[in-house]
């Protein structure tokens, strides 16, 4: 078959009909691919609500009480490709004990998730996240905001590419 035809078929798959029923998901999120961020939230709790092809999600950090670090995500995404791939954007706040207070690192998240249904109720997901630190603040020292122009060697150090895996329970609302 001609490659152009294959590409057209792939495009049709991307615009497949959206999931009709509102639904929910909840499960465990594991980061383990990055020396810096994998250790900050080694085990998160992920949850989401979906309406049509659009989904809002959060990942909270139950280990904050043990590690002192907290990494929270809030995202919004849209499902494509027969509900197998989600493209998402959102906000990540990482904070840790700092001096006598707490220092916060606010970052923008862009990402994609690919899910594999294991059964009607369970699914496994793999995700790629591109994180850019925008603003560090708190802890009684100066704030530190990203400087985009002029581009310097400092800019890439604010960016990270991370992976995650999720095991989730799903259901219809």
């Amino acid at each position, binding site marked *: 078959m001609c490659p152009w035809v294959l590409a057209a078929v792939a495009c049709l798959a991307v615009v497949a009909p959206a999931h009709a029923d509102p639904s929910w998901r909840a499960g465990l999120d594991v980061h*383990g*691919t990055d*020396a*810096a*961020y*994998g*250790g*900050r939230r*080694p085990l998160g709790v992920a949850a989401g609500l979906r309406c049509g092809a659009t989904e809002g999600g959060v990942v909270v950090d139950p*280990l904050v009480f*043990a*590690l*002192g*670090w907290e990494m929270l995500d809030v995202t919004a995404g849209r499902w494509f490709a027969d509900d197998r791939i989600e493209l998402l954007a959102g906000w990540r706040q*990482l*904070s*840790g*004990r*700092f*001096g*006598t207070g707490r*220092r916060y*690192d606010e970052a923008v998240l862009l990402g994609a998730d690919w899910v594999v249904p294991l059964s009607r109720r369970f699914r496994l997901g793999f995700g790629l996240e591109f994180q850019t*630190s925008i603003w*560090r603040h708190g*802890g*009684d*020292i*100066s704030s*530190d905001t990203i*400087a985009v122009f002029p581009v*310097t*060697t*400092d800019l890439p*150090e*604010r960016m*990270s590419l991370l992976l995650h895996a999720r095991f989730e329970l799903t259901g219809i609302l």
Partner: protein
Amino acid sequence: MTRFAGLVIAVLGCVGSSRPLLICHNANCAEGNTVEADDTLGALRASLALRTPGGEVVFDGMELDSVWDRGLGRCTFAHAPGPGAPDFAQAVALVAAHVAASAPDHAAHTSAHPALYLKIELKTDVGGGAPHTPDEVAAHVACVTAAARAVITAGVASHNVVVPIFDSDDPALPAAIDPGAFLDSSGRECLFETGWGTALPAGFTAQIRTLDWYDDPEAIDWGQGTRGQDATSGGSPRGLLIWARNPSLADLDAMLVHDPAYVGVNNIEEARGLLDAP
């Protein structure tokens, strides 16, 4: 497996046996630092003036880059050869003035090792990427030796110990420095530093090995060679120095898992706050 071990260490909260010493990278660690301000007198002044909310000096050590500029025929305070760079002695005079004006044992952050670590990097490029001739090695070494002595002398007067660290990507440069010239009555002498994995000249020992955090730390076999805080050298820590320009909080914390003896960063206030957290 190494990643998993790192994760377990982080989960258990075992982040090293003691705090690393914080070095102000390229004399540029004040608020809003940019790479363009590295190795400039203005950034050095601002960095020397940094204090914690409690009024302490923020850094344990200050890094000054020295260049032997063949075209200018002099020793400059710069990241690379170029016109307009100030004499290295001008930067050293600022550090010496800071030490002279400090209360006893307060020229650096109060720590288990009350001393100011004066880290002087000997840049390898003398212009156009050329290496040093033997005469240029001697001139460069004489320049940094005199500089370190000037700050040590200021410290003697104000009762502040100053420990020089001589660093270079080419270990042949610090190898030309006589450590005996810096031996004090307490047995403390200068330290030598070069890159992780760099082959050393015969008979030369580098007490500190440098790692760029962004050179894929995951690829390092942390179990081999110099790791973390090995021991002390006349009261000064020896071992690993990890540097990064402005690492994130998460990166800073991840560095500590490897138990470095020194951390060199530009966002030193963030590093200090993280280290001083209860």
